[in-house]
């Protein structure tokens, strides 16, 4: 067992434990913090896989910006835990676990049948692989159109967020979802 395999197994255990912690903790704040741990571990995997630029983007965008947004909304709404945890579909939970176990079994079977068990060519240790320069060259040469389309996506998301959360000043109600207090 090489040192790299030991590191991989330790990190994988931490990643799965953090994901399970996110799944099982009843407080949404704890869930968010467990997810930050998971994202950090996955960033370490990216470093092991020879993707330093993606690892840094993972830390800044995912673990930084997106999770701060999550924590901000949780604390803004005061919705750490549900007030009346009612179970409408009580049979759904065990069925979901059984079906996901079946999914995991099939995925494991397919992965083990791919013949990828031998270590691939060691491209990760070459200098230019995964460097910001190489990523940028590929991004602006071959993927220029998807890159520009992404800007349109982000613009429409921004406009959508403003429309959804804008409060109509005259009536004081949200325009995105009409007010309904009956149920």
């Amino acid at each position: 067992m090489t040192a790299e395999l030991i590191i991989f197994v330790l990190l994988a255990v931490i990643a799965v434990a953090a994901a399970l912690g996110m799944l099982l903790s009843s407080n949404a704040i704890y869930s968010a913090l467990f997810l930050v741990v998971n994202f950090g571990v996955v960033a370490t995997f990216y470093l092991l896989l020879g993707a330093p630029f993606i690892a840094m983007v993972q830390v800044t965008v995912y673990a930084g910006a997106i999770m701060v947004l999550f924590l901000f909304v949780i604390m803004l709404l005061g919705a750490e835990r549900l007030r009346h945890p009612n179970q409408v579909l009580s049979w759904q939970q065990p069925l979901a676990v059984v079906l996901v176990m079946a999914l995991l079994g099939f995925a494991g079977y397919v992965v083990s049948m791919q013949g990828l068990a031998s270590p691939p060519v060691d491209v990760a240790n070459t200098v230019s692989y995964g460097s910001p320069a190489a990523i940028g060259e590929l991004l602006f040469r071959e993927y220029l159109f998807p890159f520009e389309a992404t800007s349109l996506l982000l613009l429409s998301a921004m406009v959508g967020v403003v429309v959804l959360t804008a409060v109509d000043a005259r009536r004081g109600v949200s325009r995105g979802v009409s007010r309904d207090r009956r149920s």
Partner: protein
Amino acid sequence: MIPTTYYLALSAILFSIGVIGVLVRRNAIVIFMSIELMLNSANLAFVAFAREFGTLDGQLMVFFVMTVAAAEVAVGLALIVAIFRSKASIDVDAVNLLKG
């Protein structure tokens, strides 16, 4: 060198945990976090395959998945805030006006 299969297996496990989170949890924000976990596991598979074939296209795909995830989180959290304003709850079972 860690074989790509190990990374794919880890990716499958993380994805399954995300699916369980979406199906079992009733808190809308936790459901969103589970979706993030699933996107993240797909990203891990992309990067592992990029190393397997020695190209950078997989890493570019991760880049685009991240931007889509950021847009999705912004819109989704805005929807949650709007629902919370009208329902005073983010329990997904409380959003049942279309139920017959």
